């Protein structure tokens, strides 16, 4: 019988091996898997935790009997006067939001064009020599802590760059905006360069073959092909600029203003949160404490939405070329 002799052969083979219990192996495999899933779930729990925390505590702000603010006044009133002793405090977040967007706007005006041009240059034009200078420069710039850029903004940009030009206050939106722009620049460049580089060379060669100049290849073929990647880079930089804290805490001042004038101080949402944390009298369950959560919730909604959109665009775009 073939079956029997086969089994004998197997037995003869197995006799020489010290086999581990496969049951134990299964258990340890399952254990490890659970542990790893646990790690993954932990990162999810952070996001869920942030969302639940911010919104549940913001409810404490709106339910405060003394203040009687409804969410609509909070979102539409154009005065924010928490912490001021005179007059009734008013809680309209618009000055903080406008402060954030004033600074973000200036930062984007600087970082998006310069970042994109650097990315195009690095990916399409640069000789290895220029590259060997520019690439480390951007890497160093990316590694500089934000508090250092904040220092640069108040001690250099404001007194030596802006105040000779116009009537800039000591703390102003422009200097903070420029510093945040410098901060976002390496991010835009590296993400946009990645996007440009992942455009297949066949597209470039096709365009060159038709007699296009390098500029035409870049602007009419490569950039449109990498557009989703570039837009996602812009969105990530935007979200980074909105969430930037230390630069604005140092350079933009602590007065919430509702103007378009970049020479005025402008407190941002992040700047307000840092200032509130620093006050010694911050107690859990006080109005200042809850207002911080309400502001943070608005901030989080902005950054989270923008990052998510950028992420989705990037995922789509990766599908096209891989």
């Amino acid at each position, binding site marked *: 019988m073939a079956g029997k002799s086969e089994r004998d052969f197997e037995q003869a083979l197995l006799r020489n091996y010290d086999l581990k219990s496969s049951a134990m192996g299964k258990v340890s495999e399952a254990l490890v898997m659970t542990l790893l899933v646990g*790690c993954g779930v932990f990162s999810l729990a952070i*996001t869920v935790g942030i969302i639940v*925390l*911010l919104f549940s505590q913001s409810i404490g702000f709106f339910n405060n009997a003394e203040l009687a603010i409804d969410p609509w006044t909070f979102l539409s009133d154009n005065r924010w006067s928490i912490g001021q002793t005179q007059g009734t405090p008013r809680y309209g977040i618009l000055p903080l939001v406008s402060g954030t967007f004033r600074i973000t706007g200036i930062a984007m005006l600087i970082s998006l064009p310069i970042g994109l*041009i650097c990315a195009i240059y690095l990916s399409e034009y640069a000789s290895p020599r220029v590259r060997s200078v520019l690439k480390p420069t951007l890497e160093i*710039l990316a590694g500089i802590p934000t508090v*250092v850029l904040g220092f640069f903004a108040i001690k250099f940009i404001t007194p030596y760059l802006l105040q000779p030009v116009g009537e800039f206050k000591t703390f102003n939106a422009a200097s903070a905006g420029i510093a945040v722009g410098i901060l976002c620049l390496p991010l835009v460049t590296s993400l946009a360069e990645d996007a440009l580089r992942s455009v297949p060379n066949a597209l470039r060669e096709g365009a060159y073959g038709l007699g296009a100049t390098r500029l035409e290849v870049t602007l009419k073929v490569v950039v449109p092909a990498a557009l989703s990647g570039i837009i996602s880079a812009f969105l990530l930089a935007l979200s980074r600029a909105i969430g930037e804290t*230390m630069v604005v805490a140092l350079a933009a001042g602590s007065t919430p203003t509702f103007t378009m004038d970049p020479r005025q101080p402008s407190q941002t949402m992040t700047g307000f949160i840092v200032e509130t*944390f620093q006050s010694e009298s911050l107690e859990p369950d006080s109005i200042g404490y809850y207002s911080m959560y309400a502001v943070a919730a608005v901030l989080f909604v902005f950054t989270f939405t923008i990052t998510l959109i950028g992420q989705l665009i990037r995922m789509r775009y990766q599908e096209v070329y891989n």
Partner: protein
Amino acid sequence: MEKFYTTPRSETNRKAKNRYFSTLCLLVCGLVVLTLITLLTSIFITGGSWLSWEFLFAGHLEDNPEESGIWQAIIGSIAMCVLCALCALPIGIGTAIFLEEFQPRNKILRALHWLVQLNINNLAGVPSIVYGILGVTAFVYMFSYFPSITPNDPPYCEVGAEYRYQLKTLGGDFVNFPCPDKNDKEFRITEPLEAVNSQGSPFVLNVVDTRSQAPKNDPVLLKQTVVKGKRPSAYAVKSFFYFHLPFGKTVLSSGLTLGLVILPIVIIASQEALRAVPASLREAALGMGATKWEAVREVVLPAATPGFMTGAILAMSRAVGEAAPVLAVMGGVLVTTNGLTNLMAKTPVLPVTIYKWAGDENVGFEHLAAAAIIVLLVLLLVMNSIAILIRSRYEKMLG
């Protein structure tokens, strides 16, 4: 002979445009390099002359920039960095292994896999100050589950602290003795008890009813005598493992918060390290009968370790420069009296010190802030050089 081909005007224009654009690019890139040079030079000019050994090894002094220093801040930054790495690395690498090495077939797990991957990049985009708020709620106040710590009340639940009473005897000696009940605020001396004098030798405290009964002729006994009803002051002797709940505004809270901040960076870097391990290594291990986890443990993880280390160092260098979450959790601490003796102490860190000094009205601190920035940049440079060194060796190793 007639010319075969003449360049049309439009083509000259097109070529010129290309040249202009190339020049524009070069100018813009030059501007970027110039910005970095200006940034670094302005900091070196402001702070370079204030760097000295005294500056490195001294502490912050109010209103005295000439003699202030950053020793505590350097120690604090390093401690914080180690703490956050200890909590972020295991979880981060675990998540990366889950994402890269295990492709689950189960439908629920697959949805989880996708969700976690999407979530990582979103976490990386969350502003660090929002993590600071999360840290304040989760670690400092622990969701207000415990009564919060106030200067007058000792923490609700603590380990490693010994409470003692101290008082001054009639002879002018400071003596101390163990505190029977730390929550008793009305404790008064009524009867003789065992105590330790300022030289550290034990004796029995002599109690007299009034000041006139004091043994004035015996200076030794006078040093051991107190008037009945005197109220001693309580203090705590904290051991190195001193620990309490909630964590309060301490180095542990801020370390954990920074751990949350760098977690997405660790995960992304570890994923890249795992992706760089050639698939052939995995396949060989699986082909030799290893289970999935055995292949990961014995083959993939050792090969990816240098990559993990590079990622870890880069994440830690991010944590060293991060000021906002620390400022939120611990407040703007510039100096502590005892230094960093246990995890429940406060400590200044470099970025917060720079922030506070840069905002100080005393102009001297502006120079100190610049000097501290130089120290911080040197620290970052060292960390990044180590990372680059490891990376270059690793690339050689994997060929």
